[in-house]
């Protein structure tokens, strides 16, 4: 075990960094995607509702690994099929897109549920004072919705972090992928995967502790 840490320690830490980079990038985009589709599903515009529902259902209905293959291999192949050569996506680009789309669909549901949990009267009171739908949503409904959404967002954050391991299949040098490399070099299955597992566990534990603090602060005094 110690020999693995001695030899591969920096590599593992770098891989952890890649995992976190992919998680954060995906989460950032996922929040934007979730906002857009979540808000589409909240309003009463039928076209928007349909677009939102189709997106959420489509992405949730496809395994992440298939989505990753599709984006990393499928899309460049399709574009080359159109006669445009030289188009490639890096593993980070493809991984970020796949994970953002996946996480975005769940985020859309979290945001929709959060907004719908706010009493209808809050929007009505805002509108009765002359605020536009957008202003009432932004100033009155969303600030209250965020509170109920925070635990689910934290949960999604952790799921997304763990899902990065799936992207080892497209060769992104994140933690699980590097674990495979180390295992191939050393043949120490037990030790390697124990170390990788503990690394995930430590990071996720720290993140959930920090997140709990944030949650408590947001809820304080109400």
């Amino acid at each position: 075990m110690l020999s693995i840490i001695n030899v591969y320690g920096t590599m593992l830490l770098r891989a952890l960094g890649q995992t976190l980079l992919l998680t954060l990038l995906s989460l950032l985009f996922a929040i934007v995607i979730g906002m857009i589709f979540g808000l589409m599903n909240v309003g009463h515009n039928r076209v928007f509702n349909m677009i939102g529902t189709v997106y959420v259902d489509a992405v949730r209905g496809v395994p992440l690994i298939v989505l990753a293959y599709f984006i990393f291999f499928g899309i460049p192949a399709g574009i080359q099929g159109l006669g445009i050569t030289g188009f490639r996506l890096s593993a980070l680009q493809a991984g970020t897109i796949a994970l953002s789309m996946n996480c975005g669909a769940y985020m859309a549901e979290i945001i929709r549920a959060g907004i719908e949990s706010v009493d209808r009267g809050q929007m009505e009171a805002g509108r009765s004072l002359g605020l536009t739908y957008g202003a009432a949503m932004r100033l009155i409904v969303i600030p209250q919705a965020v509170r109920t959404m925070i635990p689910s967002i934290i949960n999604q954050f952790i799921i997304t972090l763990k899902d990065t391991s799936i992207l080892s299949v497209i060769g992104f040098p994140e933690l699980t992928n590097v674990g495979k490399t180390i295992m191939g070099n050393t043949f120490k299955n037990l030790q390697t995967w124990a170390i990788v597992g503990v690394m995930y566990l430590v990071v996720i534990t720290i993140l959930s502790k920090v997140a709990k603090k944030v949650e408590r602060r947001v809820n304080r005094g109400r």
Partner: protein
Amino acid sequence: MADNGYKIHVANLKKNFGKLEVLRDISLDVQEGEVVVLIGPSGSGKSTLLRCLNQLETATGGQIVIDGHDVTDKHTDINKVRQNIGMVFQHFNLFNHLNVMDNMTLAPVHLKIMKKEQAREEALKLLRRVGLEDKAEAYPSQLSGGQKQRVAIARALEMKPDIMLFDEPTSALDPEMVGEVLAVMKELAREGMTMVVVTHEIGFAREVANRVIFMEGGYIVEQGTPDEVLLHPKEPRTIDFLSKVL
């Protein structure tokens, strides 16, 4: 544009929820400074009528003109018209994430009707009027029902509306808190505010209303002075309803 001098002009208003006809054919005019009280059994359409006035419910048919603005016309800027119509809800609907002061100043400051400082001064004046000047920094969850409703009235008044709509403002209150809210409303009526009030408080109607309207089944069944409708009703359905609530 139908500008006939009325503050509120409703002509042949219809409202359906799906197949359910809630308002069938409502015509109603309210003059400036008039206090109109709507009574009737639940499901009679009185709250829906009130909510149509500021278009929280869009009318299915007919016309509503507020201060010369046809709010049933799609081209009317409803947000502009709503700034002049205060509304008080049964469940107060204070913004739970904001304290009393921010509840009151949010809309006028955001809509650039007042500067922040001016809005705060105005809010303090109104809070004094409703007897809650010491609650400016309190959050809604720290207030009693009666206090919440008085803040809600003050919040609506902060916009300096010409018309106030009250949707069962005392129905969600404990009995001992009804009086404090009605007192604020009575004072408002005395000052000449145009008011449309949906309520089950027959005593309030008798004392304050210029006109009482009895609704049932989406129609106005009977209307007149409180004396006429409450003490000497002509319609059998009015008599029946009053015998149950008095």
